[in-house]
Protein backbone atom coordinates (compact mmCIF):
# COMPACT_ATOMS: atom_id res chain seq x y z
CA UNK A 1 0.00 0.00 0.00
CA UNK A 2 1.33 3.43 -0.76
CA UNK A 3 0.54 6.16 1.65
CA UNK A 4 0.94 9.41 -0.15
CA UNK A 5 -0.48 11.50 2.63
CA UNK A 6 1.53 14.38 3.95
CA UNK A 7 -1.32 15.49 6.13
CA UNK A 8 -2.94 17.44 3.32
CA UNK A 9 -6.58 16.61 3.42
CA UNK A 10 -8.03 19.35 1.34
CA UNK A 11 -11.71 19.47 0.67
CA UNK A 12 -13.11 18.04 -2.57
CA UNK A 13 -11.47 19.19 -5.76
CA UNK A 14 -13.01 22.38 -7.07
CA UNK A 15 -13.98 20.36 -10.14
CA UNK A 16 -16.17 17.93 -8.22
CA UNK A 17 -18.21 20.63 -6.58
CA UNK A 18 -18.53 22.84 -9.63
CA UNK A 19 -19.36 20.26 -12.29
CA UNK A 20 -22.37 18.68 -10.66
CA UNK A 21 -24.85 21.57 -10.82
CA UNK A 22 -23.90 22.18 -14.44
CA UNK A 23 -24.65 18.53 -15.24
CA UNK A 24 -28.01 18.83 -13.52
CA UNK A 25 -28.70 21.99 -15.48
CA UNK A 26 -27.85 20.41 -18.81
CA UNK A 27 -29.92 17.29 -18.09
CA UNK A 28 -32.90 19.35 -16.95
CA UNK A 29 -32.65 21.39 -20.12
CA UNK A 30 -32.62 18.21 -22.21
CA UNK A 31 -35.68 16.83 -20.40
CA UNK A 32 -37.59 20.08 -20.98
CA UNK A 33 -36.53 20.08 -24.63
CA UNK A 34 -37.85 16.53 -24.98
CA UNK A 35 -41.21 17.52 -23.50
CA UNK A 36 -41.37 20.48 -25.87
CA UNK A 37 -40.52 18.24 -28.84
CA UNK A 38 -43.18 15.73 -27.79
CA UNK A 39 -45.77 18.49 -27.49
CA UNK A 40 -44.89 19.73 -30.98
CA UNK A 41 -45.13 16.14 -32.24
CA UNK A 42 -48.59 15.78 -30.73
CA UNK A 43 -49.89 19.16 -31.89
CA UNK A 44 -48.72 19.20 -35.51
CA UNK A 45 -51.15 17.56 -37.88
CA UNK A 46 -54.36 18.07 -39.81
CA UNK A 47 -56.75 17.63 -36.88
CA UNK A 48 -56.37 20.90 -34.99
CA UNK A 49 -55.56 20.08 -31.40
CA UNK A 50 -54.90 23.01 -29.09
CA UNK A 51 -51.95 22.96 -26.65
CA UNK A 52 -54.23 23.78 -23.74
CA UNK A 53 -56.70 21.06 -24.65
CA UNK A 54 -53.95 18.46 -25.04
CA UNK A 55 -52.30 19.33 -21.72
CA UNK A 56 -55.63 19.29 -19.89
CA UNK A 57 -56.57 15.96 -21.46
CA UNK A 58 -53.24 14.46 -20.41
CA UNK A 59 -53.77 15.84 -16.90
CA UNK A 60 -57.24 14.31 -16.91
CA UNK A 61 -55.71 10.87 -17.43
CA UNK A 62 -53.57 11.21 -14.33
CA UNK A 63 -54.89 9.47 -11.23
CA UNK A 64 -56.89 11.68 -8.86
CA UNK A 65 -57.21 14.43 -11.46
CA UNK A 66 -60.50 15.22 -13.11
CA UNK A 67 -60.64 18.14 -15.52
CA UNK A 68 -62.59 18.87 -18.66
CA UNK A 69 -60.19 19.34 -21.57
CA UNK A 70 -62.82 20.51 -24.01
CA UNK A 71 -61.62 18.02 -26.65
CA UNK A 72 -64.27 16.17 -28.64
CA UNK A 73 -64.39 12.38 -28.57
CA UNK A 74 -62.91 12.32 -32.06
CA UNK A 75 -60.07 14.62 -31.04
CA UNK A 76 -59.43 12.48 -28.01
CA UNK A 77 -59.23 9.41 -30.21
CA UNK A 78 -56.72 11.14 -32.50
CA UNK A 79 -54.68 12.29 -29.51
CA UNK A 80 -54.53 8.94 -27.71
CA UNK A 81 -54.63 6.41 -30.54
CA UNK A 82 -52.72 8.17 -33.33
CA UNK A 83 -50.55 11.07 -32.23
CA UNK A 84 -49.49 9.91 -28.79
CA UNK A 85 -48.37 6.37 -29.68
CA UNK A 86 -46.47 7.72 -32.67
CA UNK A 87 -44.63 10.29 -30.58
CA UNK A 88 -43.86 7.74 -27.86
CA UNK A 89 -42.55 5.31 -30.47
CA UNK A 90 -40.39 8.12 -31.83
CA UNK A 91 -39.01 8.71 -28.35
CA UNK A 92 -38.15 5.02 -27.91
CA UNK A 93 -36.58 4.63 -31.36
CA UNK A 94 -34.57 7.85 -31.15
CA UNK A 95 -33.36 7.15 -27.62
CA UNK A 96 -32.40 3.59 -28.50
CA UNK A 97 -30.52 4.40 -31.71
CA UNK A 98 -28.62 7.26 -30.05
CA UNK A 99 -27.54 5.33 -26.95
CA UNK A 100 -26.65 2.27 -29.06
CA UNK A 101 -24.46 4.54 -31.21
CA UNK A 102 -22.73 5.87 -28.10
CA UNK A 103 -22.16 2.31 -26.85
CA UNK A 104 -20.76 1.06 -30.20
CA UNK A 105 -18.47 4.10 -30.40
CA UNK A 106 -17.28 3.41 -26.86
CA UNK A 107 -16.52 -0.29 -27.19
CA UNK A 108 -15.00 -0.06 -30.67
CA UNK A 109 -13.13 3.16 -29.77
CA UNK A 110 -14.32 4.40 -33.12
CA UNK A 111 -16.05 7.74 -33.55
CA UNK A 112 -17.65 6.53 -36.79
CA UNK A 113 -19.39 3.49 -35.32
CA UNK A 114 -23.17 3.62 -35.64
CA UNK A 115 -25.84 0.91 -35.88
CA UNK A 116 -26.53 1.88 -39.50
CA UNK A 117 -22.90 2.15 -40.64
CA UNK A 118 -21.83 -1.07 -38.88
CA UNK A 119 -24.43 -2.99 -40.85
CA UNK A 120 -26.47 -3.80 -37.75
CA UNK A 121 -29.59 -2.08 -39.07
CA UNK A 122 -29.39 -3.79 -42.45
CA UNK A 123 -28.72 -7.17 -40.89
CA UNK A 124 -31.66 -6.66 -38.56
CA UNK A 125 -33.71 -5.52 -41.55
CA UNK A 126 -32.85 -8.69 -43.43
CA UNK A 127 -33.79 -10.80 -40.42
CA UNK A 128 -37.08 -8.97 -40.04
CA UNK A 129 -37.84 -9.21 -43.77
CA UNK A 130 -37.25 -12.95 -43.76
CA UNK A 131 -39.54 -13.25 -40.75
CA UNK A 132 -42.26 -11.24 -42.49
CA UNK A 133 -41.89 -12.74 -45.97
CA UNK A 134 -41.00 -16.36 -45.33
CA UNK A 135 -42.87 -16.58 -42.07
CA UNK A 136 -45.89 -15.01 -43.75
CA UNK A 137 -46.01 -11.75 -41.78
CA UNK A 138 -45.75 -13.69 -38.59
CA UNK A 139 -46.89 -12.26 -35.30
CA UNK A 140 -44.85 -9.41 -33.89
CA UNK A 141 -43.02 -11.50 -31.31
CA UNK A 142 -40.93 -13.35 -33.91
CA UNK A 143 -39.86 -10.28 -35.86
CA UNK A 144 -37.60 -8.63 -33.25
CA UNK A 145 -35.91 -11.96 -32.55
CA UNK A 146 -35.20 -12.57 -36.24
CA UNK A 147 -34.02 -8.97 -36.49
CA UNK A 148 -31.72 -9.50 -33.50
CA UNK A 149 -30.19 -12.61 -35.06
CA UNK A 150 -29.64 -10.74 -38.33
CA UNK A 151 -28.16 -7.73 -36.59
CA UNK A 152 -25.80 -9.80 -34.46
CA UNK A 153 -24.64 -11.77 -37.48
CA UNK A 154 -24.02 -8.54 -39.37
CA UNK A 155 -22.03 -6.82 -36.62
CA UNK A 156 -20.01 -10.00 -36.08
CA UNK A 157 -19.18 -10.13 -39.79
CA UNK A 158 -18.32 -6.43 -39.86
CA UNK A 159 -16.05 -6.63 -36.84
CA UNK A 160 -14.14 -9.71 -37.94
CA UNK A 161 -13.82 -8.40 -41.52
CA UNK A 162 -12.63 -5.03 -40.25
CA UNK A 163 -10.07 -6.68 -37.97
CA UNK A 164 -8.61 -9.09 -40.47
CA UNK A 165 -8.38 -6.50 -43.23
CA UNK A 166 -7.50 -3.44 -41.20
CA UNK A 167 -5.15 -4.81 -38.58
CA UNK A 168 -5.81 -4.26 -34.91
CA UNK A 169 -8.11 -1.28 -35.20
CA UNK A 170 -8.61 0.81 -38.21
CA UNK A 171 -11.47 3.22 -37.84
CA UNK A 172 -12.26 3.62 -41.48
CA UNK A 173 -11.77 -0.01 -42.52
CA UNK A 174 -14.37 -1.26 -40.05
CA UNK A 175 -16.88 1.20 -41.52
CA UNK A 176 -16.02 0.02 -45.05
CA UNK A 177 -16.62 -3.54 -43.85
CA UNK A 178 -19.94 -2.37 -42.40
CA UNK A 179 -20.93 -0.85 -45.72
CA UNK A 180 -20.09 -4.10 -47.52
CA UNK A 181 -22.04 -6.17 -45.02
CA UNK A 182 -24.99 -3.79 -45.26
CA UNK A 183 -24.96 -3.94 -49.08
CA UNK A 184 -24.87 -7.73 -48.96
CA UNK A 185 -27.74 -7.89 -46.48
CA UNK A 186 -29.74 -5.42 -48.59
CA UNK A 187 -29.15 -7.52 -51.73
CA UNK A 188 -30.45 -10.68 -50.10
CA UNK A 189 -33.34 -8.72 -48.71
CA UNK A 190 -34.24 -7.37 -52.15
CA UNK A 191 -34.05 -10.88 -53.58
CA UNK A 192 -36.57 -12.19 -51.07
CA UNK A 193 -38.77 -9.17 -51.61
CA UNK A 194 -38.84 -9.85 -55.36
CA UNK A 195 -39.67 -13.49 -54.73
CA UNK A 196 -42.65 -12.46 -52.68
CA UNK A 197 -43.90 -9.39 -54.48
CA UNK A 198 -47.22 -9.57 -52.69
CA UNK A 199 -45.52 -8.08 -49.65
CA UNK A 200 -43.18 -5.86 -51.67
CA UNK A 201 -44.81 -2.53 -50.93
CA UNK A 202 -45.25 -3.29 -47.28
CA UNK A 203 -41.61 -4.27 -46.83
CA UNK A 204 -40.34 -1.43 -49.01
CA UNK A 205 -42.11 1.30 -47.07
CA UNK A 206 -40.88 -0.28 -43.86
CA UNK A 207 -37.32 -0.39 -45.19
CA UNK A 208 -37.16 3.35 -45.70
CA UNK A 209 -38.10 3.87 -42.12
CA UNK A 210 -41.40 5.09 -40.82
CA UNK A 211 -43.14 5.46 -37.51
CA UNK A 212 -46.37 3.55 -37.52
CA UNK A 213 -49.77 4.96 -36.81
CA UNK A 214 -51.54 1.78 -35.80
CA UNK A 215 -51.99 2.40 -32.11
CA UNK A 216 -49.86 1.25 -29.23
CA UNK A 217 -48.91 -2.25 -30.46
CA UNK A 218 -45.39 -1.26 -31.68
CA UNK A 219 -44.71 0.66 -28.50
CA UNK A 220 -45.65 -2.35 -26.39
CA UNK A 221 -43.40 -4.66 -28.42
CA UNK A 222 -40.39 -2.33 -28.40
CA UNK A 223 -40.57 -0.95 -24.86
CA UNK A 224 -39.18 -3.92 -22.87
CA UNK A 225 -36.19 -4.30 -25.23
CA UNK A 226 -35.38 -0.61 -24.96
CA UNK A 227 -35.68 -0.55 -21.17
CA UNK A 228 -33.42 -3.57 -20.66
CA UNK A 229 -30.85 -2.39 -23.22
CA UNK A 230 -30.67 1.14 -21.88
CA UNK A 231 -30.34 -0.12 -18.30
CA UNK A 232 -27.44 -2.43 -19.13
CA UNK A 233 -25.61 0.18 -21.17
CA UNK A 234 -26.14 2.79 -18.44
CA UNK A 235 -24.64 0.43 -15.82
CA UNK A 236 -21.44 0.36 -17.89
CA UNK A 237 -21.02 4.15 -18.01
CA UNK A 238 -17.76 4.11 -16.05
CA UNK A 239 -16.46 0.97 -17.76
CA UNK A 240 -16.95 2.70 -21.12
CA UNK A 241 -14.77 5.58 -19.88
CA UNK A 242 -12.05 3.04 -19.04
CA UNK A 243 -12.36 1.39 -22.48
CA UNK A 244 -11.20 4.69 -24.01
CA UNK A 245 -7.57 3.96 -23.04
CA UNK A 246 -7.40 0.82 -25.19
CA UNK A 247 -7.53 -2.88 -24.39
CA UNK A 248 -4.10 -3.33 -22.79
CA UNK A 249 -4.37 -0.40 -20.42
CA UNK A 250 -8.04 -1.07 -19.67
CA UNK A 251 -7.16 -4.66 -18.74
CA UNK A 252 -4.31 -3.45 -16.52
CA UNK A 253 -6.85 -1.22 -14.77
CA UNK A 254 -8.91 -4.25 -13.83
CA UNK A 255 -11.61 -4.69 -16.48
CA UNK A 256 -12.03 -7.35 -19.15
CA UNK A 257 -12.31 -5.41 -22.43
CA UNK A 258 -13.23 -8.40 -24.62
CA UNK A 259 -16.06 -9.42 -22.32
CA UNK A 260 -17.37 -5.86 -21.99
CA UNK A 261 -17.25 -5.45 -25.78
CA UNK A 262 -19.11 -8.70 -26.41
CA UNK A 263 -21.80 -7.93 -23.84
CA UNK A 264 -22.41 -4.35 -24.93
CA UNK A 265 -22.38 -5.17 -28.65
CA UNK A 266 -24.97 -7.91 -28.07
CA UNK A 267 -27.11 -5.66 -25.91
CA UNK A 268 -26.92 -2.63 -28.24
CA UNK A 269 -27.68 -4.89 -31.20
CA UNK A 270 -30.69 -6.37 -29.42
CA UNK A 271 -32.11 -2.92 -28.74
CA UNK A 272 -31.35 -1.73 -32.28
CA UNK A 273 -32.96 -4.83 -33.77
CA UNK A 274 -36.11 -4.28 -31.73
CA UNK A 275 -36.54 -0.70 -32.91
CA UNK A 276 -35.55 -1.56 -36.49
CA UNK A 277 -38.23 -4.26 -36.60
CA UNK A 278 -40.79 -1.65 -35.57
CA UNK A 279 -39.63 1.42 -37.45
CA UNK A 280 -37.44 0.22 -40.31
CA UNK A 281 -33.99 1.48 -41.24
CA UNK A 282 -33.49 4.91 -39.73
CA UNK A 283 -29.89 5.94 -40.22
CA UNK A 284 -27.41 8.37 -38.71
CA UNK A 285 -29.21 9.03 -35.41
CA UNK A 286 -26.55 6.98 -33.63
CA UNK A 287 -23.74 9.06 -35.05
CA UNK A 288 -25.25 12.57 -35.12
CA UNK A 289 -26.61 12.62 -31.58
CA UNK A 290 -23.68 11.28 -29.51
CA UNK A 291 -21.28 13.51 -31.44
CA UNK A 292 -23.33 16.63 -30.91
CA UNK A 293 -23.58 15.75 -27.22
CA UNK A 294 -19.83 15.12 -26.97
CA UNK A 295 -19.11 18.54 -28.44
CA UNK A 296 -21.31 19.99 -25.71
CA UNK A 297 -20.24 18.09 -22.58
CA UNK A 298 -17.13 16.04 -23.44
CA UNK A 299 -16.64 12.28 -23.69
CA UNK A 300 -17.52 11.19 -20.11
CA UNK A 301 -20.23 8.54 -20.40
CA UNK A 302 -21.89 9.48 -17.10
CA UNK A 303 -23.32 12.49 -18.90
CA UNK A 304 -22.96 11.36 -22.51
CA UNK A 305 -25.32 8.39 -22.16
CA UNK A 306 -28.34 10.07 -20.54
CA UNK A 307 -27.97 13.15 -22.73
CA UNK A 308 -27.73 11.07 -25.91
CA UNK A 309 -30.88 9.27 -24.83
CA UNK A 310 -32.81 12.51 -24.32
CA UNK A 311 -31.45 14.35 -27.35
CA UNK A 312 -31.90 11.28 -29.58
CA UNK A 313 -35.53 11.04 -28.54
CA UNK A 314 -36.15 14.75 -29.24
CA UNK A 315 -34.28 14.53 -32.55
CA UNK A 316 -36.37 11.66 -33.86
CA UNK A 317 -39.69 13.14 -32.73
CA UNK A 318 -38.86 16.38 -34.54
CA UNK A 319 -37.56 14.52 -37.61
CA UNK A 320 -40.91 12.73 -37.70
CA UNK A 321 -42.73 16.07 -37.54
CA UNK A 322 -40.69 17.19 -40.57
CA UNK A 323 -41.42 13.92 -42.36
CA UNK A 324 -45.14 14.43 -41.84
CA UNK A 325 -45.30 18.10 -42.81
CA UNK A 326 -42.81 18.72 -45.63
CA UNK A 327 -45.00 17.12 -48.33
CA UNK A 328 -48.28 17.15 -46.41
CA UNK A 329 -50.69 15.46 -46.83
CA UNK A 330 -48.21 12.86 -48.19
CA UNK A 331 -45.58 11.52 -45.79
CA UNK A 332 -41.84 11.41 -46.34
CA UNK A 333 -40.10 8.33 -44.90
CA UNK A 334 -38.42 9.45 -41.69
CA UNK A 335 -35.20 7.69 -42.75
CA UNK A 336 -34.96 10.21 -45.58
CA UNK A 337 -35.09 13.09 -43.12
CA UNK A 338 -32.48 11.65 -40.74
CA UNK A 339 -30.18 10.79 -43.64
CA UNK A 340 -30.54 14.27 -45.14
CA UNK A 341 -29.41 15.77 -41.82
CA UNK A 342 -27.04 12.98 -40.80
CA UNK A 343 -25.02 12.32 -43.94
CA UNK A 344 -23.45 15.81 -44.12
CA UNK A 345 -22.82 15.62 -40.39
CA UNK A 346 -21.11 12.25 -40.87
CA UNK A 347 -18.73 13.83 -43.38
CA UNK A 348 -17.80 16.48 -40.81
CA UNK A 349 -17.05 13.76 -38.24
CA UNK A 350 -15.02 11.83 -40.83
CA UNK A 351 -12.94 14.93 -41.60
CA UNK A 352 -12.31 15.57 -37.92
CA UNK A 353 -11.32 11.98 -37.15
CA UNK A 354 -8.91 11.94 -40.10
CA UNK A 355 -7.42 15.20 -38.95
CA UNK A 356 -6.50 13.73 -35.60
CA UNK A 357 -4.44 10.90 -36.98
Amino acid at each position, binding site marked *: *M*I*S*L*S*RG*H*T*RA*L*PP*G*GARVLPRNVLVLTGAVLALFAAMLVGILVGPAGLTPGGVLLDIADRLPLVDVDSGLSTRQQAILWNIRMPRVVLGVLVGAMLAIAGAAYQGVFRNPLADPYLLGVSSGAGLGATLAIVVGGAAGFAGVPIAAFAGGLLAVGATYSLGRTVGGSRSEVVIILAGVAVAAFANAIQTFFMQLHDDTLRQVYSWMLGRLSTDGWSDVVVVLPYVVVTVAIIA*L*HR*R*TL*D*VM*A*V*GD*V*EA*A*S*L*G*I*NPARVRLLLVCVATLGTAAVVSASGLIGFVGIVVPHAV*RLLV*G*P*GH*RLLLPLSLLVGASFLVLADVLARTVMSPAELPIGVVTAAIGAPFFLVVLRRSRG*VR
Partner: protein
Amino acid sequence: MKSDVLTTPTTTVSCRQLSAERGGVEVLHGVDLNVTAGSWVSLVGPNGSGKTTLLHVLAGLVPATGHLQVADVAPGRAGRRDMARAVALMPQRPVVPEGVTVRELIHLGRTPHIPRFGSETAHDREVVNRVVERLELEAFAPRLATELSGGELQRVVLARALAQQPRVLLLDEPTSALDIGHQQQVLELVDSMRTEGDLTVIAAMHDLTSAAQYGERLVLLDRGHVVADGAPDDVLTADRIAQVYGARVEILDRPAGRAVLPLRDSTKDC
Protein backbone atom coordinates in the same frame (compact mmCIF):
# COMPACT_ATOMS: atom_id res chain seq x y z
CA MET B 1 22.39 -9.77 4.03
CA LYS B 2 21.24 -9.93 7.62
CA SER B 3 19.89 -13.16 8.97
CA ASP B 4 17.65 -11.39 11.51
CA VAL B 5 14.14 -12.77 11.04
CA LEU B 6 12.52 -9.35 11.44
CA THR B 7 14.47 -7.84 8.59
CA THR B 8 14.38 -10.80 6.24
CA PRO B 9 13.19 -9.35 2.98
CA THR B 10 9.91 -10.76 1.75
CA THR B 11 9.47 -11.90 -1.80
CA THR B 12 6.79 -10.04 -3.78
CA VAL B 13 7.25 -11.62 -7.16
CA SER B 14 8.20 -15.20 -7.72
CA CYS B 15 8.26 -17.00 -11.06
CA ARG B 16 9.52 -20.49 -11.69
CA GLN B 17 9.80 -22.04 -15.14
CA LEU B 18 7.58 -19.38 -16.65
CA SER B 19 6.79 -19.78 -20.34
CA ALA B 20 4.48 -17.69 -22.46
CA GLU B 21 3.57 -17.42 -26.09
CA ARG B 22 2.30 -14.66 -28.29
CA GLY B 23 0.60 -15.30 -31.59
CA GLY B 24 1.35 -19.03 -31.29
CA VAL B 25 5.09 -18.49 -30.88
CA GLU B 26 6.76 -19.11 -27.52
CA VAL B 27 8.54 -15.90 -26.54
CA LEU B 28 9.45 -16.67 -22.91
CA HIS B 29 11.20 -19.93 -22.11
CA GLY B 30 11.37 -21.15 -18.51
CA VAL B 31 12.01 -17.82 -16.83
CA ASP B 32 12.94 -17.87 -13.12
CA LEU B 33 12.66 -14.59 -11.26
CA ASN B 34 12.33 -13.64 -7.61
CA VAL B 35 11.94 -10.04 -6.56
CA THR B 36 12.27 -8.73 -3.02
CA ALA B 37 9.58 -6.41 -1.72
CA GLY B 38 10.57 -2.76 -1.98
CA SER B 39 13.40 -3.30 -4.44
CA TRP B 40 13.97 -2.06 -7.99
CA VAL B 41 14.75 -4.67 -10.62
CA SER B 42 15.67 -3.49 -14.12
CA LEU B 43 14.87 -5.78 -17.04
CA VAL B 44 17.30 -5.30 -19.90
CA GLY B 45 17.79 -7.03 -23.21
CA PRO B 46 17.63 -6.36 -26.95
CA ASN B 47 14.44 -5.59 -28.84
CA GLY B 48 12.23 -8.67 -28.97
CA SER B 49 13.95 -10.37 -26.04
CA GLY B 50 10.63 -10.69 -24.18
CA LYS B 51 10.79 -7.78 -21.72
CA THR B 52 7.33 -6.43 -22.53
CA THR B 53 5.83 -9.93 -22.61
CA LEU B 54 7.30 -10.68 -19.19
CA LEU B 55 5.81 -7.46 -17.80
CA HIS B 56 2.43 -8.31 -19.35
CA VAL B 57 2.60 -11.81 -17.85
CA LEU B 58 3.35 -10.31 -14.43
CA ALA B 59 0.37 -7.95 -14.85
CA GLY B 60 -1.87 -10.88 -15.74
CA LEU B 61 -2.48 -9.60 -19.27
CA VAL B 62 -0.86 -12.53 -21.07
CA PRO B 63 -1.40 -16.14 -19.96
CA ALA B 64 1.66 -18.16 -19.00
CA THR B 65 2.55 -21.64 -17.85
CA GLY B 66 4.68 -22.36 -14.79
CA HIS B 67 4.51 -21.06 -11.26
CA LEU B 68 3.74 -17.37 -10.83
CA GLN B 69 2.89 -15.34 -7.77
CA VAL B 70 2.78 -11.54 -7.73
CA ALA B 71 2.01 -9.70 -4.48
CA ASP B 72 0.07 -12.67 -3.08
CA VAL B 73 -2.09 -13.09 -6.17
CA ALA B 74 -1.64 -15.55 -8.97
CA PRO B 75 -2.07 -13.85 -12.36
CA GLY B 76 -4.36 -15.85 -14.60
CA ARG B 77 -6.20 -17.39 -11.67
CA ALA B 78 -7.01 -14.17 -9.80
CA GLY B 79 -9.69 -11.85 -11.17
CA ARG B 80 -8.65 -8.78 -13.10
CA ARG B 81 -9.74 -6.46 -10.34
CA ASP B 82 -7.64 -8.24 -7.71
CA MET B 83 -4.68 -8.13 -10.07
CA ALA B 84 -5.10 -4.43 -10.77
CA ARG B 85 -5.19 -3.65 -7.06
CA ALA B 86 -1.86 -5.42 -6.56
CA VAL B 87 -0.03 -4.56 -9.77
CA ALA B 88 0.01 -1.40 -11.88
CA LEU B 89 1.48 -1.14 -15.37
CA MET B 90 2.93 2.03 -16.83
CA PRO B 91 2.83 1.46 -20.58
CA GLN B 92 5.52 2.50 -23.01
CA ARG B 93 3.25 4.63 -25.18
CA PRO B 94 0.11 5.45 -23.22
CA VAL B 95 -3.14 5.81 -25.14
CA VAL B 96 -4.48 9.31 -24.66
CA PRO B 97 -8.21 9.54 -25.25
CA GLU B 98 -9.56 12.74 -26.73
CA GLY B 99 -11.42 15.25 -24.63
CA VAL B 100 -10.39 13.73 -21.29
CA THR B 101 -8.82 15.92 -18.61
CA VAL B 102 -5.70 14.97 -16.67
CA ARG B 103 -7.73 14.53 -13.49
CA GLU B 104 -10.22 12.24 -15.24
CA LEU B 105 -7.38 10.16 -16.66
CA ILE B 106 -5.82 9.77 -13.20
CA HIS B 107 -9.23 8.84 -11.78
CA LEU B 108 -9.24 5.77 -14.05
CA GLY B 109 -6.56 4.38 -11.74
CA ARG B 110 -9.26 3.94 -9.10
CA THR B 111 -11.16 1.50 -11.35
CA PRO B 112 -10.19 -1.71 -9.50
CA HIS B 113 -11.28 -0.16 -6.19
CA ILE B 114 -14.71 0.92 -7.44
CA PRO B 115 -17.53 -1.65 -7.59
CA ARG B 116 -18.19 -2.79 -11.13
CA PHE B 117 -21.29 -0.69 -11.65
CA GLY B 118 -20.54 1.88 -8.97
CA SER B 119 -19.16 5.39 -8.92
CA GLU B 120 -16.24 7.14 -7.25
CA THR B 121 -16.50 7.84 -3.55
CA ALA B 122 -15.00 10.70 -1.53
CA HIS B 123 -12.16 8.34 -0.61
CA ASP B 124 -11.32 7.74 -4.28
CA ARG B 125 -11.18 11.49 -4.90
CA GLU B 126 -9.02 11.88 -1.82
CA VAL B 127 -6.50 9.31 -3.07
CA VAL B 128 -6.37 11.03 -6.47
CA ASN B 129 -5.88 14.41 -4.80
CA ARG B 130 -2.94 13.09 -2.81
CA VAL B 131 -1.31 11.61 -5.89
CA VAL B 132 -1.87 14.83 -7.85
CA GLU B 133 -0.28 16.85 -5.05
CA ARG B 134 2.62 14.47 -4.59
CA LEU B 135 3.50 14.52 -8.29
CA GLU B 136 2.88 18.28 -8.44
CA LEU B 137 0.25 17.99 -11.13
CA GLU B 138 -2.25 20.47 -9.67
CA ALA B 139 -1.70 22.96 -12.46
CA PHE B 140 -2.26 20.26 -15.11
CA ALA B 141 -5.29 18.60 -13.51
CA PRO B 142 -7.97 20.57 -15.37
CA ARG B 143 -6.14 20.49 -18.72
CA LEU B 144 -6.83 18.09 -21.56
CA ALA B 145 -4.50 15.10 -21.56
CA THR B 146 -4.00 15.45 -25.33
CA GLU B 147 -2.32 18.84 -24.78
CA LEU B 148 0.49 17.46 -22.61
CA SER B 149 4.12 17.02 -23.62
CA GLY B 150 5.73 13.57 -23.42
CA GLY B 151 7.30 14.19 -20.01
CA GLU B 152 4.09 15.59 -18.53
CA LEU B 153 2.11 12.67 -19.91
CA GLN B 154 4.47 10.13 -18.32
CA ARG B 155 3.99 11.85 -14.96
CA VAL B 156 0.22 11.68 -15.43
CA VAL B 157 0.31 7.99 -16.32
CA LEU B 158 2.57 7.38 -13.31
CA ALA B 159 -0.03 9.21 -11.22
CA ARG B 160 -2.75 6.94 -12.62
CA ALA B 161 -0.69 3.85 -11.76
CA LEU B 162 -0.10 5.16 -8.21
CA ALA B 163 -3.83 5.86 -7.83
CA GLN B 164 -4.27 2.10 -8.15
CA GLN B 165 -2.33 1.88 -4.84
CA PRO B 166 -0.42 -1.12 -6.14
CA ARG B 167 2.27 -3.05 -4.32
CA VAL B 168 4.16 -3.74 -7.53
CA LEU B 169 4.76 -1.14 -10.24
CA LEU B 170 5.70 -2.38 -13.70
CA LEU B 171 7.32 0.12 -16.06
CA ASP B 172 7.64 -0.62 -19.76
CA GLU B 173 10.45 1.56 -21.03
CA PRO B 174 8.97 4.53 -19.23
CA THR B 175 11.44 7.07 -20.56
CA SER B 176 12.04 5.99 -24.15
CA ALA B 177 10.11 8.99 -25.49
CA LEU B 178 11.73 11.52 -23.18
CA ASP B 179 14.75 13.81 -23.31
CA ILE B 180 17.50 13.26 -20.77
CA GLY B 181 16.17 15.83 -18.31
CA HIS B 182 12.68 14.38 -18.25
CA GLN B 183 14.09 10.84 -18.12
CA GLN B 184 15.93 11.73 -14.95
CA GLN B 185 12.88 13.46 -13.49
CA VAL B 186 10.54 10.52 -14.08
CA LEU B 187 13.01 7.90 -12.81
CA GLU B 188 13.81 9.90 -9.68
CA LEU B 189 10.12 10.31 -9.04
CA VAL B 190 9.48 6.57 -9.36
CA ASP B 191 12.42 5.86 -7.07
CA SER B 192 11.21 8.24 -4.39
CA MET B 193 7.71 6.71 -4.57
CA ARG B 194 9.35 3.31 -4.15
CA THR B 195 11.26 4.27 -1.00
CA GLU B 196 8.36 6.24 0.51
CA GLY B 197 5.69 3.70 -0.17
CA ASP B 198 7.40 0.33 0.05
CA LEU B 199 6.65 -0.17 -3.62
CA THR B 200 8.35 -2.86 -5.67
CA VAL B 201 9.49 -1.66 -9.10
CA ILE B 202 10.19 -3.84 -12.11
CA ALA B 203 11.24 -1.74 -15.07
CA ALA B 204 12.06 -2.76 -18.63
CA MET B 205 14.73 -0.32 -19.72
CA HIS B 206 16.68 0.31 -22.90
CA ASP B 207 19.30 2.62 -21.47
CA LEU B 208 21.75 0.30 -19.72
CA THR B 209 23.40 3.09 -17.76
CA SER B 210 20.22 4.26 -16.07
CA ALA B 211 19.05 0.64 -15.71
CA ALA B 212 22.18 0.07 -13.63
CA GLN B 213 21.87 3.35 -11.76
CA TYR B 214 18.32 2.80 -10.56
CA GLY B 215 18.13 -0.98 -10.43
CA GLU B 216 19.53 -2.76 -7.41
CA ARG B 217 19.47 -5.79 -9.60
CA LEU B 218 19.59 -6.32 -13.34
CA VAL B 219 17.93 -9.17 -15.22
CA LEU B 220 19.23 -9.63 -18.75
CA LEU B 221 16.88 -11.31 -21.19
CA ASP B 222 17.88 -12.69 -24.57
CA ARG B 223 15.38 -14.35 -26.91
CA GLY B 224 13.12 -15.25 -24.01
CA HIS B 225 15.77 -16.65 -21.69
CA VAL B 226 17.26 -15.07 -18.59
CA VAL B 227 20.97 -15.01 -19.44
CA ALA B 228 22.18 -13.02 -16.46
CA ASP B 229 20.68 -11.99 -13.14
CA GLY B 230 22.50 -10.10 -10.42
CA ALA B 231 24.07 -6.83 -9.30
CA PRO B 232 24.55 -4.32 -12.15
CA ASP B 233 28.33 -4.57 -11.94
CA ASP B 234 28.17 -8.33 -12.44
CA VAL B 235 25.65 -8.30 -15.27
CA LEU B 236 27.00 -5.44 -17.35
CA THR B 237 30.29 -6.55 -18.83
CA ALA B 238 31.63 -5.59 -22.21
CA ASP B 239 31.84 -9.24 -23.29
CA ARG B 240 28.26 -10.02 -22.37
CA ILE B 241 26.92 -6.91 -24.06
CA ALA B 242 28.85 -7.80 -27.18
CA GLN B 243 27.43 -11.31 -27.07
CA VAL B 244 23.78 -10.42 -26.41
CA TYR B 245 23.39 -7.08 -28.18
CA GLY B 246 26.08 -7.47 -30.82
CA ALA B 247 27.34 -4.07 -29.69
CA ARG B 248 30.85 -2.86 -28.96
CA VAL B 249 30.94 -0.90 -25.73
CA GLU B 250 33.31 0.33 -23.10
CA ILE B 251 32.39 -0.02 -19.43
CA LEU B 252 33.18 3.03 -17.33
CA ASP B 253 33.14 2.77 -13.55
CA ARG B 254 32.42 6.10 -11.97
CA PRO B 255 31.38 7.11 -8.45
CA ALA B 256 27.86 7.67 -9.83
CA GLY B 257 27.70 4.09 -11.07
CA ARG B 258 28.60 1.89 -13.97
CA ALA B 259 28.21 3.54 -17.36
CA VAL B 260 28.00 1.85 -20.73
CA LEU B 261 29.58 3.82 -23.55
CA PRO B 262 28.98 2.63 -27.11
CA LEU B 263 32.11 2.62 -29.29
CA ARG B 264 32.33 3.50 -32.96
CA ASP B 265 33.95 1.13 -35.37
CA SER B 266 37.47 2.64 -35.51
CA THR B 267 38.37 0.88 -38.78
CA LYS B 268 35.74 2.90 -40.64
CA ASP B 269 37.25 6.18 -39.48
CA CYS B 270 40.63 5.64 -41.09
